[in-house]
């Protein structure tokens, strides 16, 4: 996972260096990574004996 994140982060940086549009201070890779982490947290909470 970490090597793919690094590869995508480099791709994000290259795009920005080439004058790509600035969309948010959080990179696209970080945005999607965080989304997947949140998804996992939601799944984990399903297995807890109480409701998050």
């Amino acid at each position: 996972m970490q090597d793919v994140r690094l590869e995508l982060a480099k791709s994000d940086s290259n795009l920005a260096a080439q004058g790509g549009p600035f969309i948010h201070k959080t990179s696209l890779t970080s945005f999607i990574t965080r989304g997947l982490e949140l998804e996992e947290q939601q799944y984990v909470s399903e297995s807890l004996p109480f409701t998050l």
Partner: protein
Amino acid sequence: MYQNLCLSLSNINSRQTLAYEITVMKKYETQKQLADLEEKRHGLFHCITQWREIQLAYIPAAGLLVTTTASEVLLHSASENPLFAKNIPLFLPSSLPSDIRSTRSCTQSMGHEAALREAQADDTLADIRHSL
């Protein structure tokens, strides 16, 4: 509009918490357990709210879906079956309707999601193999 909804959601959170604590009090009697539970719930909800801001920047076409969901959370907050943080749809790119997925802003996000999901699956398989 979305920010206003988030503010409203925060305001009603205490009422929701009270109702919820009454429900779980029978099973989780100590104050520490209840406090831990509430912190986790609030933490996940807060993280999702923060992430939404970034989501709307990268995929503005998802705005209507996100706003509608926030409205539903607000609507159900005072009911007996509130929408808990674990049930709030995230709307990651691959789960968006096709008309939104085909927008230019979503295409790149989908490529990143696909690559990261594949890596995530590889890691999980490696963990399983390791534990066998």
